[in-house]
Protein backbone atom coordinates (compact mmCIF):
# COMPACT_ATOMS: atom_id res chain seq x y z
CA UNK A 1 0.00 0.00 0.00
CA UNK A 2 1.29 3.44 -0.85
CA UNK A 3 0.08 6.14 1.48
CA UNK A 4 0.48 9.59 0.05
CA UNK A 5 2.21 11.71 2.68
CA UNK A 6 -0.12 14.65 2.99
CA UNK A 7 1.80 16.35 5.76
CA UNK A 8 5.50 17.03 6.04
CA UNK A 9 7.83 19.23 4.12
CA UNK A 10 9.21 18.49 0.72
CA UNK A 11 12.83 19.44 0.35
CA UNK A 12 14.46 19.70 -3.03
CA UNK A 13 17.03 16.96 -3.40
CA UNK A 14 20.51 18.08 -4.32
CA UNK A 15 23.44 15.84 -5.17
CA UNK A 16 22.72 12.26 -6.19
CA UNK A 17 19.04 11.84 -5.47
CA UNK A 18 18.41 8.75 -3.40
CA UNK A 19 21.93 8.48 -2.02
CA UNK A 20 22.34 8.20 1.72
CA UNK A 21 24.31 11.47 1.78
CA UNK A 22 21.48 13.35 0.08
CA UNK A 23 18.91 11.65 2.34
CA UNK A 24 20.90 12.71 5.42
CA UNK A 25 21.13 16.28 4.11
CA UNK A 26 17.37 16.46 3.50
CA UNK A 27 16.54 14.90 6.88
CA UNK A 28 18.88 17.29 8.69
CA UNK A 29 17.42 20.40 7.10
CA UNK A 30 13.85 19.39 7.81
CA UNK A 31 14.75 18.40 11.38
CA UNK A 32 16.47 21.78 11.92
CA UNK A 33 13.40 23.54 10.50
CA UNK A 34 11.11 21.63 12.85
CA UNK A 35 13.37 22.36 15.86
CA UNK A 36 13.43 26.04 14.88
CA UNK A 37 9.63 26.00 14.95
CA UNK A 38 9.58 24.43 18.44
CA UNK A 39 9.57 20.68 17.81
CA UNK A 40 10.53 17.94 20.23
CA UNK A 41 12.37 14.94 18.75
CA UNK A 42 10.98 11.61 19.98
CA UNK A 43 13.56 8.83 19.69
CA UNK A 44 12.46 5.23 19.66
CA UNK A 45 14.18 1.90 19.07
CA UNK A 46 12.16 -1.13 20.17
CA UNK A 47 15.05 -3.62 19.81
CA UNK A 48 17.98 -1.33 20.58
CA UNK A 49 16.69 1.22 23.13
CA UNK A 50 20.24 2.34 23.89
CA UNK A 51 20.52 3.80 20.38
CA UNK A 52 17.39 5.91 20.97
CA UNK A 53 18.89 7.12 24.24
CA UNK A 54 22.14 7.94 22.46
CA UNK A 55 20.30 10.10 19.90
CA UNK A 56 18.43 11.93 22.67
CA UNK A 57 21.57 12.68 24.69
CA UNK A 58 23.32 14.01 21.57
CA UNK A 59 20.65 16.66 21.10
CA UNK A 60 19.95 17.50 24.75
CA UNK A 61 23.58 17.65 25.87
CA UNK A 62 25.80 18.35 22.85
CA UNK A 63 29.37 17.06 22.90
CA UNK A 64 30.54 20.32 21.34
CA UNK A 65 30.48 23.17 23.85
CA UNK A 66 28.42 26.10 22.60
CA UNK A 67 26.00 24.12 20.42
CA UNK A 68 22.44 24.69 21.51
CA UNK A 69 20.62 22.12 23.62
CA UNK A 70 17.56 20.83 21.77
CA UNK A 71 14.54 18.95 23.10
CA UNK A 72 14.87 15.24 22.37
CA UNK A 73 13.65 12.33 24.42
CA UNK A 74 13.96 8.57 24.20
CA UNK A 75 10.76 6.56 24.46
CA UNK A 76 11.36 3.20 26.13
CA UNK A 77 8.09 2.22 27.74
CA UNK A 78 5.33 -0.35 27.56
CA UNK A 79 2.83 0.37 24.74
CA UNK A 80 5.16 2.78 22.91
CA UNK A 81 2.59 3.63 20.20
CA UNK A 82 0.05 4.57 22.87
CA UNK A 83 2.68 6.57 24.74
CA UNK A 84 3.71 8.42 21.58
CA UNK A 85 0.06 9.19 20.81
CA UNK A 86 -0.08 10.95 24.19
CA UNK A 87 3.32 12.63 23.97
CA UNK A 88 3.60 13.84 20.37
CA UNK A 89 2.43 17.38 19.60
CA UNK A 90 1.81 18.80 16.12
CA UNK A 91 5.13 19.83 14.57
CA UNK A 92 7.19 17.27 16.50
CA UNK A 93 9.42 14.65 14.88
CA UNK A 94 9.38 10.91 15.49
CA UNK A 95 12.71 9.18 14.86
CA UNK A 96 12.76 5.38 14.91
CA UNK A 97 15.75 3.07 14.68
CA UNK A 98 14.22 -0.22 13.70
CA UNK A 99 13.93 -2.93 11.09
CA UNK A 100 11.50 -2.32 8.23
CA UNK A 101 9.35 -5.22 9.44
CA UNK A 102 8.77 -3.88 12.97
CA UNK A 103 4.94 -3.80 13.24
CA UNK A 104 4.81 -1.21 16.05
CA UNK A 105 7.12 1.17 14.23
CA UNK A 106 5.15 0.71 11.00
CA UNK A 107 1.97 1.54 12.89
CA UNK A 108 3.43 4.66 14.49
CA UNK A 109 4.95 5.88 11.22
CA UNK A 110 1.56 5.51 9.53
CA UNK A 111 -0.18 7.45 12.32
CA UNK A 112 2.40 10.21 12.67
CA UNK A 113 0.85 12.46 9.95
CA UNK A 114 -2.45 12.40 11.86
CA UNK A 115 -0.53 13.55 14.92
CA UNK A 116 1.06 16.34 12.85
CA UNK A 117 4.50 14.80 13.30
CA UNK A 118 7.36 14.43 10.85
CA UNK A 119 9.12 11.06 10.66
CA UNK A 120 12.67 9.78 10.27
CA UNK A 121 13.31 6.04 10.01
CA UNK A 122 16.86 4.75 10.44
CA UNK A 123 17.76 1.13 9.88
CA UNK A 124 19.60 -1.59 7.98
CA UNK A 125 18.77 -4.59 5.84
CA UNK A 126 15.52 -4.74 3.85
CA UNK A 127 14.26 -1.22 3.22
CA UNK A 128 10.79 0.07 4.18
CA UNK A 129 8.43 0.70 1.27
CA UNK A 130 8.16 4.05 -0.49
CA UNK A 131 6.50 6.69 1.66
CA UNK A 132 7.03 4.70 4.87
CA UNK A 133 8.49 7.82 6.51
CA UNK A 134 9.30 11.39 5.49
CA UNK A 135 12.99 10.49 5.64
CA UNK A 136 14.34 6.95 5.35
CA UNK A 137 18.04 6.71 6.23
CA UNK A 138 19.08 3.21 5.33
CA UNK A 139 22.32 1.22 5.37
CA UNK A 140 22.87 -1.82 3.18
CA UNK A 141 24.91 -3.58 5.88
CA UNK A 142 25.82 -6.80 4.11
CA UNK A 143 27.63 -8.06 7.21
CA UNK A 144 24.60 -7.57 9.46
CA UNK A 145 26.76 -5.95 12.16
CA UNK A 146 26.05 -2.23 11.65
CA UNK A 147 23.84 -1.94 14.71
CA UNK A 148 26.71 -2.93 17.02
CA UNK A 149 29.87 -1.90 15.20
CA UNK A 150 29.46 1.87 15.00
CA UNK A 151 27.79 2.37 11.62
CA UNK A 152 24.28 3.12 12.93
CA UNK A 153 25.91 5.44 15.46
CA UNK A 154 27.67 7.20 12.57
CA UNK A 155 24.29 7.78 10.94
CA UNK A 156 22.74 9.56 13.91
CA UNK A 157 25.97 11.38 14.72
CA UNK A 158 25.86 12.78 11.17
CA UNK A 159 22.20 13.71 11.58
CA UNK A 160 23.13 15.71 14.70
CA UNK A 161 26.20 17.31 13.09
CA UNK A 162 24.38 18.34 9.91
CA UNK A 163 21.33 19.61 11.83
CA UNK A 164 23.61 21.99 13.72
CA UNK A 165 25.21 23.15 10.47
CA UNK A 166 21.69 24.14 9.35
CA UNK A 167 21.35 26.38 12.41
CA UNK A 168 24.18 28.47 10.96
CA UNK A 169 21.82 29.35 8.09
CA UNK A 170 18.90 31.09 9.81
CA UNK A 171 17.45 32.28 6.52
CA UNK A 172 16.84 28.65 5.50
CA UNK A 173 15.17 27.53 8.71
CA UNK A 174 11.77 28.55 7.38
CA UNK A 175 10.53 26.31 4.60
CA UNK A 176 9.17 28.97 2.26
CA UNK A 177 7.79 26.35 -0.14
CA UNK A 178 5.58 25.08 2.67
CA UNK A 179 4.20 28.48 3.57
CA UNK A 180 0.54 28.53 2.64
CA UNK A 181 -0.33 30.91 -0.18
CA UNK A 182 -3.67 30.93 -1.95
CA UNK A 183 -6.07 28.00 -2.02
CA UNK A 184 -3.85 25.23 -3.39
CA UNK A 185 -1.95 24.36 -0.21
CA UNK A 186 -2.30 20.63 0.40
CA UNK A 187 -1.91 21.06 4.14
CA UNK A 188 -4.69 23.58 4.54
CA UNK A 189 -7.07 22.52 1.81
CA UNK A 190 -9.17 19.51 2.48
CA UNK A 191 -7.42 17.14 0.14
CA UNK A 192 -7.32 13.68 1.72
CA UNK A 193 -5.95 14.51 5.14
CA UNK A 194 -5.02 11.61 7.42
CA UNK A 195 -7.05 11.25 10.60
CA UNK A 196 -6.91 8.85 13.55
CA UNK A 197 -10.22 8.00 15.20
CA UNK A 198 -10.44 9.09 18.83
CA UNK A 199 -14.01 7.94 19.37
CA UNK A 200 -16.77 6.63 17.13
CA UNK A 201 -19.68 5.99 19.47
CA UNK A 202 -22.40 7.81 17.49
CA UNK A 203 -23.67 6.49 14.16
CA UNK A 204 -22.20 8.23 11.11
CA UNK A 205 -20.01 10.60 13.11
CA UNK A 206 -16.60 10.28 14.75
CA UNK A 207 -14.18 12.46 16.65
CA UNK A 208 -10.77 12.28 15.01
CA UNK A 209 -7.28 13.66 15.39
CA UNK A 210 -5.61 15.30 12.41
CA UNK A 211 -2.50 17.43 11.98
CA UNK A 212 -4.81 20.42 12.46
CA UNK A 213 -6.21 19.16 15.76
CA UNK A 214 -9.42 17.49 16.95
CA UNK A 215 -12.47 17.55 14.77
CA UNK A 216 -15.76 15.80 14.14
CA UNK A 217 -16.25 14.13 10.77
CA UNK A 218 -18.99 12.32 8.91
CA UNK A 219 -18.23 8.60 8.69
CA UNK A 220 -21.20 7.41 6.65
CA UNK A 221 -19.03 6.05 3.84
CA UNK A 222 -16.65 3.99 5.97
CA UNK A 223 -18.75 2.63 8.84
CA UNK A 224 -18.11 0.92 11.17
CA UNK A 225 -15.07 2.58 12.73
CA UNK A 226 -13.23 1.88 15.94
CA UNK A 227 -10.94 3.96 18.11
CA UNK A 228 -7.46 3.98 16.57
CA UNK A 229 -8.63 3.43 12.97
CA UNK A 230 -7.00 5.58 10.32
CA UNK A 231 -9.13 7.32 7.70
CA UNK A 232 -8.64 9.85 4.92
CA UNK A 233 -10.81 12.93 5.39
CA UNK A 234 -12.05 15.13 2.57
CA UNK A 235 -14.38 18.07 3.13
CA UNK A 236 -15.30 16.91 6.63
CA UNK A 237 -16.08 13.39 5.48
CA UNK A 238 -14.16 10.14 5.88
CA UNK A 239 -13.72 8.83 2.35
CA UNK A 240 -11.47 5.83 2.90
CA UNK A 241 -10.30 3.62 5.73
CA UNK A 242 -6.59 2.79 5.73
CA UNK A 243 -5.11 -0.52 6.79
CA UNK A 244 -2.53 -0.63 9.54
CA UNK A 245 -1.59 -3.56 11.71
CA UNK A 246 -3.84 -5.77 9.60
CA UNK A 247 -1.62 -5.11 6.60
CA UNK A 248 1.48 -6.06 8.53
CA UNK A 249 -0.20 -9.27 9.63
CA UNK A 250 -1.26 -10.10 6.09
CA UNK A 251 2.25 -9.60 4.78
CA UNK A 252 3.75 -11.81 7.44
CA UNK A 253 1.14 -14.43 6.67
CA UNK A 254 1.98 -14.30 2.97
CA UNK A 255 5.61 -14.82 3.89
CA UNK A 256 4.82 -18.26 5.28
CA UNK A 257 4.88 -17.51 9.00
CA UNK A 258 3.37 -19.76 11.62
CA UNK A 259 0.28 -17.61 11.95
CA UNK A 260 -1.66 -19.84 9.54
CA UNK A 261 -1.14 -23.04 11.51
Amino acid at each position, binding site marked *: MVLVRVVGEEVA*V*AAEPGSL*DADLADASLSLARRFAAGATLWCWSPRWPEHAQHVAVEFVHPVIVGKRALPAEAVDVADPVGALRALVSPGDVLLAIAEASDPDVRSAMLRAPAWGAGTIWIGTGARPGPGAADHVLWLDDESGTAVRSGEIALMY*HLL*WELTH*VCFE*HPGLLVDRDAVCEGDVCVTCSDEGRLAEVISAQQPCVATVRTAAGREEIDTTLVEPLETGDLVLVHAGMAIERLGDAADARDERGAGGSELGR
Partner: protein
Amino acid sequence: MSHEGTDFLYPFIDGDERDASALLKDLAASARGKADDSKNLRVATLERCAPDLEVAAEALANTFRAGGRLFVFGNGGSATDAAGVAALFRTPPWGVQLPVRSLVADEAILTALGNDVGFELVFSRQLIAHARRGDAAMGISTSGNSANLLTAFAEAQRLGLLTIGIAGYDGGQMATIDLDHCLVVNADSVHRIQETEAALMFALWSKVQTRL
Protein backbone atom coordinates in the same frame (compact mmCIF):
# COMPACT_ATOMS: atom_id res chain seq x y z
CA MET B 1 34.91 48.91 9.44
CA SER B 2 31.46 48.26 8.06
CA HIS B 3 30.88 44.65 7.06
CA GLU B 4 28.66 45.68 4.16
CA GLY B 5 31.58 45.58 1.77
CA THR B 6 32.11 41.86 2.32
CA ASP B 7 28.53 40.70 2.75
CA PHE B 8 28.45 39.45 -0.82
CA LEU B 9 30.98 36.77 0.20
CA TYR B 10 28.56 35.42 2.80
CA PRO B 11 25.10 35.51 1.26
CA PHE B 12 23.50 34.05 4.41
CA ILE B 13 25.13 36.42 6.92
CA ASP B 14 22.05 38.57 7.39
CA GLY B 15 19.64 35.67 7.63
CA ASP B 16 18.27 36.44 4.19
CA GLU B 17 19.52 33.26 2.54
CA ARG B 18 16.70 31.79 0.44
CA ASP B 19 17.96 28.91 -1.68
CA ALA B 20 18.54 25.67 0.22
CA SER B 21 20.11 23.78 -2.67
CA ALA B 22 23.67 24.99 -2.01
CA LEU B 23 23.38 24.08 1.66
CA LEU B 24 21.98 20.63 0.86
CA LYS B 25 24.87 20.02 -1.51
CA ASP B 26 27.37 21.06 1.18
CA LEU B 27 25.64 18.89 3.79
CA ALA B 28 25.74 15.84 1.53
CA ALA B 29 29.43 16.40 0.76
CA SER B 30 30.13 16.88 4.47
CA ALA B 31 28.30 13.63 5.28
CA ARG B 32 30.41 11.77 2.70
CA GLY B 33 33.64 13.22 4.09
CA LYS B 34 32.79 12.41 7.68
CA ALA B 35 31.67 8.88 6.78
CA ASP B 36 35.02 8.36 5.05
CA ASP B 37 36.86 9.70 8.11
CA SER B 38 34.88 7.36 10.33
CA LYS B 39 35.63 4.33 8.19
CA ASN B 40 39.33 5.16 7.87
CA LEU B 41 39.64 5.63 11.64
CA ARG B 42 37.87 2.33 12.30
CA VAL B 43 40.09 0.42 9.89
CA ALA B 44 43.33 2.04 11.13
CA THR B 45 42.46 1.57 14.81
CA LEU B 46 41.42 -2.07 14.42
CA GLU B 47 44.71 -2.72 12.63
CA ARG B 48 46.83 -0.91 15.22
CA CYS B 49 44.98 -2.51 18.16
CA ALA B 50 44.87 -6.03 16.69
CA PRO B 51 47.59 -7.48 18.96
CA ASP B 52 46.09 -5.84 22.09
CA LEU B 53 42.62 -7.04 21.09
CA GLU B 54 43.86 -10.65 20.87
CA VAL B 55 45.42 -10.49 24.34
CA ALA B 56 42.34 -8.82 25.86
CA ALA B 57 40.02 -11.32 24.17
CA GLU B 58 42.06 -14.22 25.53
CA ALA B 59 41.88 -12.80 29.06
CA LEU B 60 38.16 -12.12 28.80
CA ALA B 61 37.47 -15.57 27.35
CA ASN B 62 39.37 -17.06 30.29
CA THR B 63 37.20 -14.99 32.64
CA PHE B 64 34.00 -16.41 31.11
CA ARG B 65 35.39 -19.96 30.96
CA ALA B 66 36.09 -19.79 34.68
CA GLY B 67 32.55 -18.61 35.43
CA GLY B 68 33.33 -14.90 35.72
CA ARG B 69 31.01 -12.08 34.68
CA LEU B 70 31.71 -8.78 32.92
CA PHE B 71 30.41 -5.41 34.19
CA VAL B 72 30.37 -2.50 31.71
CA PHE B 73 29.94 1.21 32.43
CA GLY B 74 30.31 4.71 30.98
CA ASN B 75 28.64 8.13 30.97
CA GLY B 76 26.29 9.75 28.42
CA GLY B 77 26.77 8.30 24.94
CA SER B 78 29.30 5.88 26.45
CA ALA B 79 26.57 4.70 28.85
CA THR B 80 24.43 3.76 25.87
CA ASP B 81 27.46 2.07 24.30
CA ALA B 82 27.90 0.12 27.55
CA ALA B 83 24.26 -0.99 27.32
CA GLY B 84 24.78 -1.93 23.67
CA VAL B 85 27.89 -4.04 24.24
CA ALA B 86 26.25 -5.75 27.22
CA ALA B 87 23.29 -6.66 24.99
CA LEU B 88 25.69 -7.91 22.30
CA PHE B 89 27.41 -10.30 24.72
CA ARG B 90 24.15 -11.42 26.40
CA THR B 91 21.99 -12.01 23.33
CA PRO B 92 24.44 -12.23 20.40
CA PRO B 93 23.57 -12.65 16.71
CA TRP B 94 25.58 -15.87 16.83
CA GLY B 95 27.69 -17.78 19.34
CA VAL B 96 27.51 -18.28 23.08
CA GLN B 97 25.39 -16.14 25.40
CA LEU B 98 27.55 -14.58 28.10
CA PRO B 99 26.81 -12.94 31.48
CA VAL B 100 27.52 -9.26 30.85
CA ARG B 101 25.78 -6.48 32.74
CA SER B 102 25.59 -2.75 32.20
CA LEU B 103 25.93 -0.70 35.38
CA VAL B 104 23.89 2.14 33.86
CA ALA B 105 20.68 0.16 33.37
CA ASP B 106 18.83 0.90 36.61
CA GLU B 107 17.75 4.47 37.27
CA ALA B 108 16.81 3.68 40.87
CA ILE B 109 20.34 2.51 41.64
CA LEU B 110 22.03 5.33 39.69
CA THR B 111 19.97 8.07 41.33
CA ALA B 112 20.14 6.51 44.80
CA LEU B 113 23.94 6.34 44.65
CA GLY B 114 24.31 9.69 42.91
CA ASN B 115 22.10 11.38 45.46
CA ASP B 116 23.39 9.67 48.59
CA VAL B 117 27.12 9.18 48.04
CA GLY B 118 27.94 11.23 44.94
CA PHE B 119 28.17 10.65 41.23
CA GLU B 120 31.85 9.73 41.41
CA LEU B 121 30.88 6.55 43.21
CA VAL B 122 27.93 5.35 41.10
CA PHE B 123 29.94 2.57 39.42
CA SER B 124 32.43 1.67 42.16
CA ARG B 125 29.64 1.12 44.69
CA GLN B 126 27.89 -1.25 42.29
CA LEU B 127 31.13 -3.19 41.79
CA ILE B 128 31.44 -3.50 45.57
CA ALA B 129 27.91 -4.93 45.70
CA HIS B 130 28.12 -7.28 42.70
CA ALA B 131 31.67 -8.15 41.72
CA ARG B 132 34.01 -10.82 43.02
CA ARG B 133 37.51 -11.98 42.16
CA GLY B 134 37.44 -13.60 38.73
CA ASP B 135 34.97 -11.11 37.25
CA ALA B 136 35.89 -8.37 34.76
CA ALA B 137 35.18 -4.63 34.54
CA MET B 138 35.11 -2.64 31.30
CA GLY B 139 34.81 1.17 31.34
CA ILE B 140 34.17 3.35 28.28
CA SER B 141 35.18 7.03 28.20
CA THR B 142 36.02 9.12 25.16
CA SER B 143 38.26 11.41 27.26
CA GLY B 144 39.67 8.66 29.43
CA ASN B 145 39.25 11.01 32.38
CA SER B 146 35.74 10.39 33.76
CA ALA B 147 36.07 10.55 37.53
CA ASN B 148 33.51 7.82 38.23
CA LEU B 149 35.32 5.45 35.85
CA LEU B 150 38.69 6.09 37.48
CA THR B 151 37.11 5.43 40.90
CA ALA B 152 35.47 2.26 39.58
CA PHE B 153 38.73 0.99 38.09
CA ALA B 154 40.53 1.59 41.39
CA GLU B 155 37.85 -0.46 43.12
CA ALA B 156 38.06 -3.15 40.43
CA GLN B 157 41.82 -3.40 40.92
CA ARG B 158 41.34 -3.67 44.70
CA LEU B 159 38.77 -6.47 44.13
CA GLY B 160 41.15 -8.31 41.78
CA LEU B 161 38.99 -7.97 38.66
CA LEU B 162 40.26 -8.09 35.09
CA THR B 163 40.19 -4.44 33.95
CA ILE B 164 39.60 -3.23 30.38
CA GLY B 165 39.51 0.42 29.36
CA ILE B 166 38.06 1.80 26.11
CA ALA B 167 39.15 5.41 25.58
CA GLY B 168 39.73 8.14 23.00
CA TYR B 169 42.19 11.00 22.42
CA ASP B 170 45.47 9.81 24.01
CA GLY B 171 43.70 7.58 26.53
CA GLY B 172 43.69 10.27 29.22
CA GLN B 173 44.21 9.10 32.78
CA MET B 174 42.84 5.66 31.91
CA ALA B 175 46.09 5.07 30.00
CA THR B 176 48.13 5.76 33.14
CA ILE B 177 46.48 3.68 35.87
CA ASP B 178 47.84 0.24 34.98
CA LEU B 179 44.67 -1.27 33.57
CA ASP B 180 45.17 -4.84 32.40
CA HIS B 181 44.10 -3.74 28.91
CA CYS B 182 43.48 -0.25 27.56
CA LEU B 183 42.33 0.17 23.97
CA VAL B 184 42.69 3.74 22.75
CA VAL B 185 41.16 5.42 19.68
CA ASN B 186 43.67 8.13 18.77
CA ALA B 187 41.35 10.85 17.46
CA ASP B 188 39.92 14.11 18.71
CA SER B 189 36.29 14.03 17.57
CA VAL B 190 33.99 12.53 20.20
CA HIS B 191 31.65 11.14 17.56
CA ARG B 192 34.38 9.51 15.46
CA ILE B 193 35.91 8.10 18.67
CA GLN B 194 32.58 6.59 19.75
CA GLU B 195 32.03 4.97 16.34
CA THR B 196 35.45 3.34 16.46
CA GLU B 197 35.04 2.37 20.13
CA ALA B 198 31.91 0.46 19.08
CA ALA B 199 33.92 -1.26 16.35
CA LEU B 200 36.67 -2.17 18.86
CA MET B 201 34.17 -3.66 21.29
CA PHE B 202 32.46 -5.55 18.48
CA ALA B 203 35.85 -6.98 17.48
CA LEU B 204 36.54 -7.88 21.12
CA TRP B 205 33.20 -9.69 21.34
CA SER B 206 33.87 -11.52 18.09
CA LYS B 207 37.36 -12.61 19.19
CA VAL B 208 36.02 -13.81 22.56
CA GLN B 209 33.38 -15.88 20.72
CA THR B 210 35.98 -17.63 18.56
CA ARG B 211 37.73 -18.76 21.75
CA LEU B 212 34.68 -20.27 23.46
